[in-house]
């Protein structure tokens, strides 16, 4: 896939959705009794979509992502990725809110490990590590220790690591929430570029309306717990050939932001 960055990831003749949720509900059993976190919710994500899930904290959007990742099984309903039940480590790269890099490995070592888990042969791994780091805008950091690079750079490494497996699906759980505003904006721009290049199906969770409009090709707003779909919107903004600042200056951009913002506020009320 990396050799044909502009080719669509859809094999001809398949119409299997990248992600399909049917009547999914999730209930956490806790000390204070069961807590309904999500649903019932049904959602179909076609291949190539950049879906952003927006909602106030505690609306179950992270739960939804964990279900799609296969870390949790839904209490009821079915979750399918690529037509099968999701299993962690198969078919989806994940970026968490914290970088979750391994401090006993160098920056390059972290990416290399991801390639190893993806079954890439040793000789090819050495070649692909710098490529992957370049792709997320990192140069000359492969030999650094994790604590020697900034938080923004760490999250870039985490994205490179999640891309290493060439999985058809990329899941991101508020990956930029812990970063400062300036770094966040630059990472958003780079992620938008990388996403447009790879055309990979992505599910991105955030509580930021701005981030949702900027990144998403489709935005779903979730209600308060248990999270349901309050708004499901296709974002018609151009994915390529437009500079970030131009994009943000478009009148449609402002209109979408206003509409999604209203929906988020209404859903949280």
């Amino acid at each position, binding site marked *: 896939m990396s050799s044909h960055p502009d080719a669509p990831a859809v094999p001809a003749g398949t119409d299997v959705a990248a992600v399909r949720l049917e009547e999914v509900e999730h209930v956490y059993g806790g000390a204070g009794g069961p807590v309904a976190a999500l649903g019932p919710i049904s959602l179909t994500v076609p291949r190539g979509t950049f879906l952003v899930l927006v909602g106030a904290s505690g609306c179950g959007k992270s739960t939804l992502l964990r279900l799609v990742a296969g870390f949790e099984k839904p209490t009821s309903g079915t979750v399918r990725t690529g037509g099968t039940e999701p299993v962690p480590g198969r078919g989806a790269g994940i970026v968490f809110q914290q970088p979750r890099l391994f401090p*006993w490995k160098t920056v390059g070592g972290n990416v290399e490990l991801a390639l190893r888990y993806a079954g890439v042969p040793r000789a090819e791994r050495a070649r692909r590590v710098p490529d992957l780091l370049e792709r997320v805008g990192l140069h000359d950091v492969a030999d650094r220790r994790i604590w020697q690079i900034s938080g923004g750079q760490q999250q870039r490494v985490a994205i490179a690591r999640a891309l290493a497996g060439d999985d058809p699906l990329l899941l991101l759980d508020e990956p930029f929430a812990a970063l400062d505003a300036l770094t966040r904006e630059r990472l958003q721009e780079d992620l938008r570029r990388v996403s447009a290049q790879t055309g990979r199906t992505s599910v991105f969770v955030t509580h930021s309306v701005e981030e949702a409009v900027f990144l998403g090709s489709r935005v779903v707003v979730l209600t308060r717990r248990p999270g349901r779909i309050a708004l499901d919107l296709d974002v018609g903004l151009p994915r390529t050939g437009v500079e970030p600042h131009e994009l943000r200056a478009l009148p449609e951009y402002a209109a979408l932001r206003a509409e999604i913002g209203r929906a988020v506020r209404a859903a949280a009320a």
Partner: protein
Amino acid sequence: MTSSPSRPAAARPPDAVPAVPSPAAGPRPGSPPARRGRGARRAGVRVLSLLALLALWQLAAVAAGNPSFVPAPRAVWDQLVLLSTTHDGVRGYGGHLLVEHLAISLRRILIGSALGVAAGLVLGVVLGTVPWIRLVAEPVVTFVRALPPLAYFSLLIIWFGIDETPKLWLLAIAALPPVAVATAAAVHGAPTGLVEAARALGASRWDAVKDVVLPAALPEIFTGVRLAVGVAYSSVVAAETVNGVPGIGGMVRDAQRYLQTDVVVLGLLAIGLSGLLIDGLLRFAETRLIPWRGRV
């Protein structure tokens, strides 16, 4: 791991006087001259305290007035010279020089604690990952840990005779629990976020243990190893109570029987100082091998 409250306390085993200035003590030093100045002052304080200690010792020896009760520093020094040379056809103590006694004991400590550490590691990983084995085996480990080495030495002698074997067994058994307990705790408390990240990348269960759980546990395991070597050290005298010459502990026991108090004190000093040296080496190895300590 930063959330583990027991770590800071466990990270400093009872080594009251760190003779080797730990490079780990100041990961973010000030400007080099300031650091040098502080280092010099610390060295000065240590030399002064050592001199004060010697003076107190001398005073105590004079006050006691009985060299068999408290030998003077000078007498111990003379024994050091005597035990390090051949004089009147007698080589050192009991035919072995002081360094040879020490070397033989160190060899026992090395082999014994290596065996104990290896077994403790395996046991610790099992205890930390398999809940029902933890349930069954943890009381046993705690039980063994509570036993003074001398107590089970008799049994080891019945089983293995009086040569090297029971001594190595004793040191291995003494060294095992600290490593097992530290490893089990560290493995059990493995950072779930990192394990999840590895699984998300396609790591198998074994991959996750090998590539995440063990490296994350390594700082705590290393603290366990340092404690284990310390325990092996303090058990070596017990291990050498029977047929212990040559050996520094055997030497001390033997000298005690003949009321050669200066040799006893010399033996204690040799054990203590070599212990400090080895702990310093272990700490140095730690900063080299585990640069991510405190960063998980």
